[in-house]
């Protein structure tokens, strides 16, 4: 079968990333549907960038606190991940379980992470998905003691990004 984009680059400007905080007091969820992602099928390199301001919370007040106090999005408007698939070999059609390693940057702080992910390759798209935990403290995010019980120390991040071929 003729593959129009064999071993090429894949891109999306509307990838999905969400995060979830569970605590006794409340559960907080935020979703970002404007995530930029580039995947290089030749090298296994993955770049993900997102705007903090694109995260939508159910409660406007929580969104305000997130941007103004916790993430300080005026100072640090973006978060990014730059990395690659470990021991990369060409992807097969269908589901591939991979290890992704790279630098995660949030709130101006960078941390090396290595997490498992699933890449589903089909004729015309690449679907990158996975979830992992992030320690709020690792990124110098300060939660005021008043709301410490409302926000988990470990936040669950969920990634579900669909990329299309891109020249």
């Amino acid at each position, binding site marked *: 079968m003729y593959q129009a984009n064999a071993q090429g680059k894949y891109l999306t*400007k509307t990838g999905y990333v969400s995060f979830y905080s569970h605590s006794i007091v409340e559960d907080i969820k935020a979703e970002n549907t404007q995530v930029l992602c580039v995947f290089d099928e030749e090298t296994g390199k993955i770049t993900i960038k997102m*705007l903090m*301001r*694109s995260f*939508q919370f159910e409660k*406007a007040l929580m969104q305000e606190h997130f941007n103004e106090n916790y993430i300080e999005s005026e100072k640090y*408007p*973006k978060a990014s991940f730059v990395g690659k698939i470990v021991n990369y070999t060409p992807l097969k059609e269908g589901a591939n379980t991979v290890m992704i390693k790279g630098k995660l940057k949030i709130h101006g702080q960078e941390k090396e992470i290595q997490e498992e992910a699933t890449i589903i390759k089909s004729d015309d798209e690449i679907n990158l998905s996975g979830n992992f935990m992030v320690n709020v403290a690792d990124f110098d995010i300060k939660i005021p003691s008043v709301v410490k019980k409302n926000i988990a120390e470990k936040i669950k991040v969920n990634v579900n990004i669909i990329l299309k071929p891109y020249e």
Partner: protein
Amino acid sequence: MKNKKTKIILGLAILIGIIAIVGVGLSQYNKSHVNVKNTKADYILSPAKLISDYSSDEINADKNYVNKIIKIKGKISFVSTSNGKGTVTFNIPNSETGITCSFQSSESVKIGKLRTNHQVIIKGICAGMLLDIMMKECVIVE
């Protein structure tokens, strides 16, 4: 008795005060997101103007535009829908940077009727710039 009356009035005043504080607190806690459709735009811009401002000075453009409601009048370069949510992109000649607008789900039917090269007026909140300038919570303006 004067004393008793004073105490009752004071008690009532404190009670009203507490209700007021709790009321304000609750309304703040439950305050809703900005209604883009019903709120006047902070800026009315052409795609070229917004792209030019961001291309020349991203940090300054963020200061002016992030979290503001911007009305954009322009020609659609690309339109698509995924998971029931529409996206419209504006591109201009000689610029790799475009504007990508993500729409509220209420706009999905309207988005379905849009095509490349249609002139359109959209209103949304600027979130900043990645490859494109990203607009969120967008609506089509009649």
